[in-house]
């Protein structure tokens, strides 16, 4: 089956600044992809090119088997980062307008609007004027506008920004619902834990270049866990011996014990035995690498290695750099 989204060697510059550099991206149909990276990494520019709002200087784009999103807009739901509503317009006419622009109409449209508002917990707000809505309510209405036509591809740029935890959880549920319905979801965020919670696959960009592209499980497997949380059995125990172990890179105090960073290439199981030998522990745990840590690791190595942080052979970052047109 063809990919829902395919970007090949896409580059976009604004004056002297390169926003996106030779980006390769492929999102299979039915995928739930996180497009992550810090602010200014080029995510929004890449998404705008996907949506044919901006056009690449180089490279090709295919979206739902079309060369341009303009040819498939009715099948794409897009929640932009820069989003808003017509202040003087009421919610229902606004959604009706967007629905009609997306090719909806007839008797089906009105009940669909009602159901969509109910789903995001906004029953009865359809008569309100948009400038009467709170920020969270506006976000939800905008989400409804993006999904009203049950798109095949849903592109969400920072969908959780400005939402409280309850609304974030609710929206996360609705996104997963859309995915279960069969929609391909590409979710862009700079808040990496959010992507970690929801996505199956992660594409990480930094300074316009892709630095990671793999499914989350593989990433976790590939990134050798090198952080151990240790809580001594005796709170008063001398732990200075930990830092002197050959497997240990450094030790720092954590909430209830120590966070121990192992040297690269160390066998975690053997290292944990050595740690227990040095200091009896009430709790010892190998910490799963967080995306944030992986990102910092990749970027850190990239800064240290001007060759582009290609990573070690076999690692996720190595595969990522091979996939990234700009780095390969």
């Amino acid at each position, binding site marked *: 089956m063809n990919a829902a989204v395919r970007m090949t060697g896409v580059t976009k510059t604004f004056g002297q600044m390169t926003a996106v550099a030779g980006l390769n991206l492929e999102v299979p149909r039915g995928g739930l992809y996180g497009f992550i990276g810090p602010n200014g990494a080029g995510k929004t520019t890449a998404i*705008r090119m996907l*949506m*044919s*709002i*901006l056009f690449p200087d180089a490279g090709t784009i295919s979206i739902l088997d079309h060369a341009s999103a*303009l040819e498939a*807009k009715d099948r*794409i*739901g*897009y929640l*932009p*980062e*820069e*989003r*808003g*509503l*017509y*202040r*003087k*317009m009421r919610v229902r006419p606004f959604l009706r*307008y*967007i629905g*009609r*622009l*997306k*090719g909806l109409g007839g008797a089906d449209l009105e009940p669909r609007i009602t159901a969509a508002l109910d789903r995001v917990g906004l029953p009865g707000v359809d008569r309100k004027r948009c400038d009467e809505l709170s920020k969270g309510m506006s976000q939800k209405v*905008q989400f409804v*506008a*993006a999904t009203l036509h049950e798109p095949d591809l849903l592109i969400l740029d920072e969908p959780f920004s400005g939402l409280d935890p309850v609304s974030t959880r609710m929206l996360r549920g609705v996104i997963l619902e859309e995915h279960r319905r069969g929609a391909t979801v590409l979710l862009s965020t700079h808040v990496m834990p959010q992507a970690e919670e929801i996505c199956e696959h992660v594409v990480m960009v930094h300074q316009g270049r892709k630095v990671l592209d793999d499914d989350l499980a593989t990433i976790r497997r590939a990134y050798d866990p090198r952080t151990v949380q240790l809580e001594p059995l005796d709170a008063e125990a001398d732990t200075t011996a930990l830092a002197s172990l050959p497997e240990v890179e450094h030790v720092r105090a954590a909430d209830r014990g120590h966070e121990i960073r192992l040297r690269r290439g160390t066998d975690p199981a053997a290292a944990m035995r050595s740690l227990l030998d040095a200091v009896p522990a009430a709790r010892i745990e190998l910490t799963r690498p967080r995306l944030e840590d992986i990102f910092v690791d990749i970027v850190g190595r990239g800064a240290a290695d001007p060759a582009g942080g290609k990573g070690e052979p076999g690692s996720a970052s190595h595969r990522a750099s091979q996939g990234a047109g700009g780095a390969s």
Partner: protein
Amino acid sequence: MTRIVQVALRDFLAVVTTKGFVFGLVATPAIGGILVLVAPSLFDDRDYRIAGEYAIVDPTGAVAPRMRAAIEPQAVAGRRLAALRRGMDRVPEPVRSVAEDAVPPSLAAELGPPPDVRLTVLPADADLEEARAWLAEDSAAPGEPRRAALIVIHHDAVTGEDPAAALGTYDLYVPAGLDDRDVDFCHEAIREAITEARAAAHDLDRAAVERLLEVPRQASIAVGAGAEGETVGGLTRLLPAAYMILLMVGIMVGGQNMLTSTVEEKSNRVVEVLLSAVSPMELMAGKLLGAMAVSFVMMAFYAGIGLALLASFSLLGLVDPWLILYLGIFFVLGFLVLGSLMLAVGAAVNDMNEAASLQGPLIVAIMVPWIFWPAVARSPDSTLALVVSFLPPVNTFGMLIRMASTQPPPWWQVWLSIAIGAAAVVGAVWVAAKVFRIGLLMYGKPPDFRTLIRWVRAA
């Protein structure tokens, strides 16, 4: 196409369903109508009664008696009636017939109340200082007319020694603060009296002289390859002005609405939501159509009122239907050129303050035809007229002025101007679309003209 219609429909309804638009639409003609109805009463001076005492020093002895006759109510009514008829002669035939039907029943009202003026003839050698003091004192007894004028006829006002030299005239002294209608009446009566005296002194029959001098103006008949006919005149000549006003109002209202809504969509960040559903070109086309529809509603409303008024006076024949058709064509062309550029300005800026400087040249383009209008209307075949009628964006104005003139251009020039106008639409929409596409997602420092040009070349 459906998306363009949807955008147009939203923008159209967003404007025409506002109370402000409805109020503005109705208020303008309502205020005009109120002025038409009320102003005549407010400014009507026909009820003003000319009254007072005039003193006259007449060394010729021939003017004073005629002055006394000239201020007689019947003579005054006769002169006013004649003036009214002379005015009517200048009015186009259909208006004249309507007006003449209306005049007889209200003739007395039209002519106003008869004057009540008393004339005192002073001796020819009267002391002028004393006479002026009499006027200045204004110590008229109760019930007596106020002192209103001292008239001093020059000794050579009726006859002169040198037949080739101009005859003398008169001096008129009035008290400070005298109403200008009294002054005008006095001048008119003196002129009448002196003219009568001169005619008598030269043994001339004044009525015969006036008949000799009178050549009523007739409508000219244009002779050409086609059928003969009266040259366009009357209201038809006002069509370019009506067009300019309509286009100006259309651009001002439609263009401003477009500009405001674009700036609002940009500042509200709703524009990217729209761009996820429509292409920038579709968005722009929809906005242009919506704004043009708003202008058409406004024009149809005003034109409907105008036509209804003309029809009620049986004056519809004054308007050339072909010119109305061309007016429609030229309006669409002019609106699309200036409106699309206005839309580009809206997309390029962040708020209305920034828009003011960028839309300046467009406002000038709308105002330019007012400068050229008299020259083009007077010499519709001049080089200036030719240039103006083929140079976008003012060509639509220029050509319509020429078409409504006494020497309409050949049809091929009209259609050449329309073709140039259509090409200008394509060019303007092309430029505007490029600025629109880039500008919509640009925030921060507003672009200057150099940046706009760079956008056009880069996009």
